[in-house]
C-alpha cells in the first residue's frame, strides 16, 4: 500500500479484487510502483479549472439511436457455443454456483 498526492491509499490488491484479477506477489511488486508513477503523472490534470465544463462521453453528436423493435436473425446456438471452453446440451458449463 502506498500514498499518492491526492492523500489516498492506493491498495492494489483491493483494486485487483474489483477487477476479478488474481495477482502474484511479484506482479504486485512490479505493478504498484508503475501504477503509482502513472497516477502521480495524472495529477497534472488537477492544474486545469474544469468547473462549469460539460463532460464528453464520446465524440459523436448523436443520442438515442434506435432500430425497429422487430425480431431478426442472430447467431445460431451452435455458432455461439463453438468457442465455449466447456459446453453441454446447448449450454455453457460453469462451476456450481448455488448450493
Amino acid at each position, binding site marked *: 500500500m502506498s500514498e499518492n498526492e491526492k492523500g489516498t491509499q492506493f491498495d492494489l490488491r483491493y483494486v485487483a479484487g474489483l477487477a476479478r*484479477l488474481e495477482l502474484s506477489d511479484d506482479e504486485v511488486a512490479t505493478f504498484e510502483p508503475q501504477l503509482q508513477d*502513472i497516477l502521480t503523472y495524472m495529477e497534472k490534470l488537477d492544474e486545469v479549472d474544469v468547473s462549469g465544463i460539460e463532460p464528453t462521453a464520446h465524440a459523436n453528436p*448523436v443520442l438515442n439511436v434506435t432500430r425497429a423493435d422487430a425480431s431478426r436473425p442472430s447467431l445460431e446456438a451452435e455458432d455461439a457455443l463453438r468457442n465455449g471452453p466447456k459446453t453441454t446440451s446447448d449450454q455453457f458449463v460453469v*462451476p456450481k454456483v448455488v448450493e
Partner: protein
Amino acid sequence: MSLASKTIKELRGLLDGGEIQPMEIVDSVIAAAEARDEKIGGYLSWDRDQACRACETPIRGLLGGIPIAIKDLINVKDQPCGCGSKILRNYVAPYDATSIVNLRRAGGHPFGRANMDEFAMGSSNENSSIKPVHNPWDLERISGGSSGGSAAVVASDQAIAALGSDTGGSVRQPAAFCGCVGLKPTYGRVSRFGLTAYASSLDQIGPLTKTVEDAAILLGAISGGDANDSTCLDEPVPDYAAGLTGEIKGMKLGLPEEYFGEGIDPAIREAVQKAAKHYESLGVEIVDVSLPYTEHAVGVYYIIATAEASANLARFDGVRYGYRAPDAKDLAEQYAKSRAQGFGPEVKRRILLGTYVLSSGYYDAYYLRAQKLRTLIRDDFTKAFAKVDAILAPVSPTPPYKIGEKVANPLDVYLADIFTTSANLAGICGLSLPCGFMTPGDGDHELPIGLQLLGAPFAEEKILRLGHHYEQSTEWHQRRPVI
C-alpha cells in the same frame, strides 16, 4: 517487381486487363511472407485454402481480387481472432465484422491475421503475447503499435494493404515507424461491429497502405452506416479516390505550436517543418494555430481508455469463450485465475488502472475530470478548424526504440502518444504518411519519419487530397527497406 510489392490501384489495372489472376497475388504475398516474415513477425497466420475459395468468385468492385491483411482483433468468419492474446488463443470468429462484410462487398477478401499488441494495448507491439513485430528498417527496433503487424507487412511488401484499428494512434504511429500510409477515420465513419473493443468511445478501424490513393480506395470500401453499431453514422460515403486530384492551392494548413516544442526529436521536427515549406511551394497557406490542451491529452487518454477497457475486458471470464483456468473451486476463482493466466502484463496494468479510476471515491477525481478535459481538447480542434482546412503535425515525438528498452517504464511509453491521442479524444480524422528519414543517435540504420494531417470530423476528403499531393510531389513513399 513481385505482385506483393504493388499497390491496390496497380493490381486492379492488371486484373482488369486480364494479365493476372487473383490467386497469383495471394501466392506472391505468401512467397514474400515465407521469405521475410520470420525476421519481422508481422503475420500470426494465413489460410491459403480460404483465399482459394474467395478467389473463385468473379472479380468485381473497387477491391475485386485484392487480398487485405487483417489485424487480429477484427472478426472474420471461420478465421482465428486472438487479439494477440493467450486468453483467445483458440478462438475462431463465428461471424464477419461489418468492415469485413463491406470489404467483401467491394470484391476484396481478408487474407492473413496481422500481429498486434495484446487487445490493442501498446505502442510498440512488444505486448503481443505471441511474438513482437520487428521494424522492417531496423530489425532490432519496434514496429510501433498497436497495429504493428499491419504496418510491417505492408511496409515490407508482404501484403498489398491491411486493416488496423486506432484508439490512441495505433494505426498512425506504426505507419510512421514502418514507413507506410495509415488513416484513422472520423469516429463513426467505419462500423466497429465485430471489432474486439478496447476503448469503445475512441476505437476506429482504419487502412494501412503503400499510397494515399490506396488508403482512399480502402476507406471508401469499408465506410458507411451500420444498424449493428449505433455510434456509426449514416453519412454519405464520397468517392474518396476521385477527390484526390482536386486543387489544394489556397487551402489552409495549421501548424500547432504545441506539437513542435520541447521533447520532440530535432530530426522529426525538421522533417515536418520541411513538409510545411513544401506545402507552401504547392500553394497551400501555412497558418499558426494553437491547441493549448495538448499537454493534457496523454493523461486524459490513459484515464478514459483504461476505464473503458476495464469494462470491455470484463467479458473475458472463461465462461463463453477463451481460456478457462482448470480446477477452479467456484465461479469467482474461475474468473480471477482465468484472467490472471490469460492476460499479459500491459493488459493487467490497464485493467487495474481503469478499475481504480472508476472505483468508488475516485470516479469524480479521475474519470469525470478527464471527461471534462476531453471537452476542452475537442473545443481546441473545433476552434482551429474554423480557421484552417487541416492541421499538420508530427506523429511521434521520438523514433522507434530498441525492442526491450522500455519494458520497465510504461509511463515513458505512454508519454510518446502525445501527438496521436488527441484525435481520438476529439473524434476527428488523421492521416499519417512518410515525410523523411533519420538515423537515430543509437543506431546505424535509416528510419522513416511520418507526418500527420488532422482533419475535422468527416473531412477525410481534405486530408487525403492534401496527403496525396504531398506524396506525389516527393519520393519518400517509393523507398523500401532492405530485409
